């Protein structure tokens, strides 16, 4: 009984670790805006700035998942709004291909989120992080952590 309770408590306390690969021109600035406007959202995201979502090599995402990240958020400019003309489309294509093979590799494709969040959408950034944390809490930790520890 006590064990069960402890387990439950542990589950409740699971805080997903999200790697955020955020485009400097849109999503990273949106995160800044969320802060300046004091929009509340969970602290689980670890923002890593990129110049453009187009530079996000699928290997980065794989590296994060294999390393045990519970989720990866790629923040990109809205379609047609890329600061570098077409980087977000390149990212969309790469992410689609990557997602199609993740499950085969034993990784879960729904841990990878590609989000269009413009520099003006601080609220959307906060909402997206909150939603992602929520979903990942339901999913539980990245099982690869258990695999590495055995």
């Amino acid at each position, binding site marked *: 009984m006590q064990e069960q309770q402890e387990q439950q408590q542990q589950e409740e306390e699971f*805080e997903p*670790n999200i*790697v955020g690969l955020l485009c400097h021109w849109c999503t990273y*600035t949106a*995160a*800044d805006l*969320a*802060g*300046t406007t*004091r*929009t*509340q*959202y*969970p*602290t*689980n995201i*670890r*923002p*890593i700035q*990129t*110049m*453009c979502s*187009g*530079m*996000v*090599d*699928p*290997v*980065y995402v794989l*590296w*994060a998942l294999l*390393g*045990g*990240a519970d989720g990866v958020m790629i923040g990109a400019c809205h379609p047609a709004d890329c*600061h*570098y*003309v*077409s*980087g977000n489309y*390149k*990212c969309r294509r*790469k992410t689609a291909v990557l997602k199609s093979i993740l499950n085969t590799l034993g990784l879960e494709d729904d841990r990878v989120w590609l989000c269009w969040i413009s520099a003006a959408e601080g609220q959307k950034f*906060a909402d997206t992080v909150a939603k992602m944390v929520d979903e990942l809490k339901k999913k539980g930790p990245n099982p690869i952590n258990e695999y590495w520890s055995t």
Partner: protein
Amino acid sequence: MLSVGQTPSPHFIELGEILSIELNKWGFCKTQELSPVKTSKEGVFVCGSASAPKDIADTLVEASAAACQVSELLSSQRGQLITTKDYPEELDLSETEARVAIFLCTCGEEIASAIDMEEMLDFAKGLHGVVYVEQTPYLCQKDTLEQVQGKIKEHEVSRVIFAACSDITYEKLFIDAIRDVGLNPSLLELVDFREQLSSISPDHKKQAMEKAKTLITIALERVRTQEPLHLISQNVEHQALVIGGGLAGLTAALSLAEQGFEVQLAERTAELGGNLRHIFAILEGGDPQALRQDLIKRVEENPHIRLHIETEVIETSGYAGNFEAVLKDKDSTLEPVKVGAIIIATGGEAYEPNEYCYNDSEKVVTQAELEQQLVSGKLDAKELGCVVMIQCVGSRDKERQYCSRVCCSQALKNSLSLKERNPEIDIFVLHRDVMSYGFKEEYYSQAREKGVLFINYDLDRKPEVAIEGERLVIQTIEPTTGGVLKIEPDLLVLSTGIVPNDNNVLAQMMDLELTEDGFFKEAEVKFRPVDFVTNGIFLCGLAHSPRGITETIAQAQAAAQRAASILSRERLESGRVVSEVNERRCSGCELCVSACPYNARFKDTDKGVVVVIEALCQGCGACVAICPSGAAKLRGFTDKQVFSVMDAVI
């Protein structure tokens, strides 16, 4: 949903009085004829919705045009107020191991209340490579920064982390501070404890602490692996090439020459003036032919402009500040020119109709022909009893879906002109919608008051024109009754639209994008209305889109001003974050060449590897993600850095 219009600001009357500039009857700023940004007072200029209702793109165009006019007046004083700051020479850090200092700003109580500063200090001190950690009250204050600079020197620090607030807001200030102590800006890493932490979750101290630690580790990993990055700077050719000698090209060339820049103006045909040659009146007033003659005279007399008639541009290479173009004249003599900026003003053409019996009867003419015949006296309005005009000929149909913007004004202009010459004349304008935007609406009302009849027609039920002997017979559906209206006019005038030139050759040569309709496409429709994606090349006139005379003038001045922003600089500096090629790894597959949106990469066929033109690289990193060999590297965002940062996070 209400689509509301724009009204002049009520305070504008007051401002008008203070500046003693005239307003028009609606309370917008009055502008001079054919000068979209000149107010009634010399030396006072206007742009945006102050002079008429306007959208974003037109507002930006006018803003640049106004800046251009001001620059022309102030050109002798250019650069006089610029002061440059001297920084000490950067320290040579190549041999030393990274010595990192971390400065934690408490932002008063803001950050200190969200995380335990003591714990943070201890954590930071224990990190590998960190030689100094300090807590400061307000990093953004001058005296605090001076103390910080002292500590950096004292502890021989080679890498700095500021954990403070919005890096976007304070980056400049902080970079300035570390440059003052001889450190390269790329050796500073900013951590945003306020916007990323204390502002978003003030009540979750434990999680905030965890995130704070990770943010510091991310910064540490980045800064430790960071090499000093240097700006790439190069000379600028203080000369522009303007392609096209129509209204847009002439205006742009003159605007640049008035600012003291050398201009090479290339016109394909034997005559300057372009489509302006065929315009004899303007709806709002003003004499286009006088304008044309004046422009040509000023261009020919200007010592800064070199005119190349019957000359085409057959080759271009290079990049902003340093283009090379080859001009070919009618004798096929080639002349290379070196220019810092290029303005494309190659114009458009009037649509050549083949519908509505245009080729079958002399009684069917275009609006431009009507205008010309009225001016030359070939046509006497007094001999005409009835005139029909058909709008949207060659525009807004399946083939060309765009509105040609000028034809409704042309129809209004010529209707009013005909009515003035002969008030008894019957005029029917068969239209799909009358696009009398802005103040042109007034002339639409005038035309209706004078008895011009406007009858709407449908795209699927266009008017039908037949020639019966000597007579022209036009049938159209009268929409209110649904019946067929039969008119036998003395003259049928077709409002033909504007079509693009064959822009493909130039577009391919300079690697510029065209729209689906074949016009040149700007970098961004709203915010970069006269720029191309390729830096240093600008766009104006009918080459961009159909537009009227005043709009063309504003756009040409805007393009000139954008070009001047490059030509006026001694040197052009590109960003520190640019990509490079690891030649040992590069297999020369050229995937990166096609991925680069800026043509900043090409293959060196001798070496078999790809080379980066640093001046063109904008640092997006598309090449990095596509390179299968790991040979493409983005300075400041190398794979190694990304991986080590990620390892620190997870």
